């Protein structure tokens, strides 16, 4: 049996995230330009495969068959695998996972994983309708189910069962917005949010306030994923993919079970840590899917960063900040950077690469990191996707 090749992320880039005067195609072009700027050794003809993470281009951009469109915009002619990956909020990570699987299987050597979403439309009710379609549309979406009221119910139950406070939610949001201030591509770059200010913002879906919710964001990001023995042609700091995990156990909200115990994430976490041969205590930092402040709290508990019910205290005590235990969301998170669905998972991988390469500003540089975890949930936290990275020695 031949040995499975190692796989590395050999660089990447993101566009500026925010409310952009740019179309879906223009965001893809910007991500492509920045990718080739970030990896000067990369030649388009070396890329044999392209994976495009895009959640709802049919609704947001009225465009199907987007993988060949993205290939044309990037000047790529994929000759081995070309495909779009769709897993709602985890569509970007799905692109990386697919590239990883293809390379590990010997079906690709040099792949680009690109993620993109154009979410700000002239009618935001139209955009919100797209978000309701992520749910079981005719049964849950038709009642007005979108992400904010669902995660609001998670927060309500967490408060009732564990005494989690609005101050703890604000602590998560304040930290991630603070990190976003050192990230010029973040939607909320150069905006300050104290806990007091966050707790004064309007309610969106009680108990969640505006600052507890990630935004509708336009953005794109791309990474180069390569067979291990090719990595050093492109970088001296490869980020090795060492493990993955994923779990999906329901879709209709009737099957959600206990809102505060994310069984699927515990399952995915076991597999991710097992496959990487590490445990949560080995992590130096984690990019958790803080689509809402409460999500970071519950995710940290399910991944074993702290005991069940202690996720609020973990943030309040600074254990998820620099100088704490496991730094969570140094990029600025979805709360600080915005959440262009297809781009988010890729942008998190770009942060892992840059942290390992010590390319980020000191305000968010995790000291000498070796292990990082990336988490995306999708939909109503009914699917969890994880990747474990190790810094190249």
């Amino acid at each position, binding site marked *: 049996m031949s040995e499975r090749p190692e796989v590395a992320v050999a660089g990447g880039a993101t566009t500026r995230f925010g409310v952009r005067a740019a179309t879906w195609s223009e965001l893809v072009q910007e991500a492509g330009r920045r990718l080739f700027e970030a990896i000067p050794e990369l030649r388009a003809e070396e890329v044999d495969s392209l994976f495009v993470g895009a959640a709802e281009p049919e609704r947001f951009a009225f465009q199907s068959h987007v993988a060949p469109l993205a290939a044309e915009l990037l000047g790529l002619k994929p000759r081995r695998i070309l495909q779009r990956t769709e897993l709602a909020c985890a569509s970007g990570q799905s692109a990386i996972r697919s590239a990883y699987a293809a390379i590990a299987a010997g079906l690709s050597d040099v792949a680009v994983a690109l993620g993109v979403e154009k979410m700000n439309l002239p*009618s*935001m*009710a*139209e955009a*919100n*309708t797209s*978000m*309701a*379609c992520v749910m*079981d*549309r*005719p*049964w*849950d*979406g*038709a*009642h*007005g*189910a*979108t992400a*904010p*009221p669902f995660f*609001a*119910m*998670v927060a*309500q*139950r967490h408060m*009732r069962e564990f005494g989690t406070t609005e101050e703890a939610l604000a602590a998560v949001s304040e930290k991630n917005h603070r990190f976003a201030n050192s990230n010029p591509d973040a939607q909320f770059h150069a905006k300050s949010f104290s806990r007091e200010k966050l707790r004064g913002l*309007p*309610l*969106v*879906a*009680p*108990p*969640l306030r505006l600052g507890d919710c990630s935004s509708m964001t336009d953005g794109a990001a791309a990474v180069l994923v390569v067979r291990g023995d090719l990595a050093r042609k492109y970088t001296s700091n490869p980020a090795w993919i060492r493990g993955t995990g994923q779990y999906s156990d329901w879709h*209709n*909200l*009737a*099957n*959600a079970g206990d*809102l505060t115990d994310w069984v699927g994430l515990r399952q995915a976490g076991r597999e991710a840590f097992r496959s990487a041969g590490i445990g949560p205590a080995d992590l130096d930092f984690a990019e958790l899917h803080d689509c809402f402040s409460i999500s970071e709290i519950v995710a940290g508990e399910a991944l074993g960063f702290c005991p069940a019910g202690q996720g609020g205290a973990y943030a309040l005590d600074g254990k998820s900040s620099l100088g704490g235990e496991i730094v969570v969301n140094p990029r600025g998170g979805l709360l600080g950077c915005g959440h262009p669905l297809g781009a988010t998972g890729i942008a998190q991988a770009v942060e892992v690469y840059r942290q390992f390469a010590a390319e980020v500003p000191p305000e968010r540089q995790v000291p000498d990191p070796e292990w990082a975890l990336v988490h995306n949930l999708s939909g109503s936290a009914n699917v969890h996707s994880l990747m474990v990275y190790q810094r190249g020695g």
Partner: protein
Amino acid sequence: MAPPTTPAAEAPAVTARPRAAPATPSSPAPIPTLLDFHPLEDPRFTEIAAFFDHLRAGRFSTTRCRRDGRLLWPPRTVCPECHRSELEWVDLPRHGRIYAFSAVLAGAPLGMEEAVPFAVGLVDLDGVPLRLFGRIEGRPWTELAIGAEVNVEGFDLPDGRIFYRFRARPASPGAPG
């Protein structure tokens, strides 16, 4: 694989649908945008049209597997446990208690903007292992509580279709808030 049998074994035969003279209160906030392009309740487009016939007749129902007794929500045509189509319609309790709730104060989808603010919640139906999501009418979200009692009701959409929602019990006279 055999084609799915119509699970409407115990349902009355589909008859002409009353499209006028709503027997239930009509919605102050129509929500058809997020219903199907093909109306889900129309037997030309779906095998579970009986759900809506039942709703019109005052019954709240779903399918149950005859082989393993599994209660399926939403109504299905194949049991995901045994992968057979030996399903039957059963009536569900029309009363339950709120497990969790919130409200949409901003960011509503098309067709729901004028209803803002509106309450939504997960409700444990009495006596069955079903926790359903839905709109909660009857009281503002500020007056709802975990454990509060709600009823399930059908309501007519302006285009003649019918849907369901929860209605919170009105405040008892003299009770605070």
